[in-house]
């Protein structure tokens, strides 16, 4: 079971808690986790990554184990502690100033 922490507005859109859990077969990568998220919560399609290119949206970053993994290849294995469910994958929105 992979744990994923969503930003505030995406929790509201998916009508879920901050942390969601999805089953992901190996390999556990950013791509396979997001595939699973979008399959379980279709309303999140296009909100984390572009529908067509599947590129991460510019104002979002992925964190795992206190590391920014946004620029890792989408098919790179996530840390083993994320794959085991010990640590969540964080999807984080850019801070909004004003």
């Amino acid at each position, binding site marked *: 079971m992979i744990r994923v922490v969503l930003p505030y507005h995406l929790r509201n859109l998916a009508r879920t808690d901050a942390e969601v859990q999805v089953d992901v077969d190996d390999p556990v990568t950013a791509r396979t986790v997001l595939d699973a998220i979008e399959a379980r919560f279709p309303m999140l399609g296009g*909100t984390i990554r572009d529908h067509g290119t599947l590129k991460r949206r510019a*104002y979002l970053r992925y964190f795992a184990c206190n590391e920014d993994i946004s620029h890792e290849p989408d098919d790179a294995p996530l840390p083993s502690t994320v794959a085991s469910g010990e640590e969540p994958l964080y999807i984080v929105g*850019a801070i909004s100033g004003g």
Partner: protein
Amino acid sequence: MSGIRLLVGTSKGAFILTADGSRKKWSVSEPHFGGLEIYHMKGSPADPSRIYASQCSDWFGQVVHRSDDGGTTWETVSNKFEYAGETGTHQWYDGTPHPWEFKRVWHFEPSLTDPDTVYAGVEDAALFRSTDGGMNWEELPGLRGQGTGTDWTPGAGGMCLHTILLDPANADRIYTAISAAGAFRTDDGGTTWRPINNGLKSEHIPDPEAQVGHCVHSLALHPTRPDVLFMQKHWDVMRSDNAGDAWHEVSGDLPSDFGFPIEVHAHEPETIYVVPIKSDSEHYPPEGKLRVYRSRTGGNDWEALTSGLPQEHCYHNILRDAMAVDTFDPCGIYFGTTGGQVYASADNGDTWLPIARDLPRVLSVEVQILP
């Protein structure tokens, strides 16, 4: 007594304002989609319970919401807007070719007869249609591909298709307007399109009378006379008496002919409303006086409507989709400002009241009459 519902899209959520037919006492909802920009929402003329809302943000992109109960609850429908075929290029700000890229929905126009059919005007400029309540979207590529698309350029706000008018007398005729390309018309249900910009003059382009390149801000028509069109252009208020085949200027004695919205009175096809803005460099009312101007002669002769509107120190703008009219008699007029006020007139514009004072920046205002 029947009621009225105003759908107000703002930079930080959607608000629904309701009143009975007297339009004297208004209720303002809590924000829907709080904190998120709702650029436009509009109800179906065929079923007022059906509302479509466009949410867009830099963080999460485009999201489309649909309500089937008048805005009490919402469900998310498809946000997948894929251009048909080769996307090609349009002109970028510097004149270089730039590929078409979807950014957001500027305007929803529900069908006049079918709640499940709705048109979406998007940036980069294209027209999409759904026939299943927003679950799937398909581009009508004949507009983007009608031959001048490579010459279209964005305005400062983006290259957006922001106006969609459905001809109530001819289901095959649709008008659209694009900034900064101009106005376009189809007579075959959206398959083929042609520019309808003869008579427009825009000094900011190399050929002021070019076929395309005009920054049309808004179009309006009266349902009983759909061949007569009114246009608020970047500068100039224009009129066409032949479905856009030719335009002539009717700015007349306006203090400024720059502005964004234009509307037609519900029962008087020759009565139109605009809100003059000082200039394209100073987006606020001339002299700091918020004045709606009304022409009862289809243009040229205008009167300032000021009763109830601030006549000093007002520096808000009124955006192109932030004005609407109801179909009660007397006709109600509504508009929202970038300062967060929503003003209403229940007497054809003679007097105005603020019915919301402190909303976020108002992006759109639409009206629904409730049974």
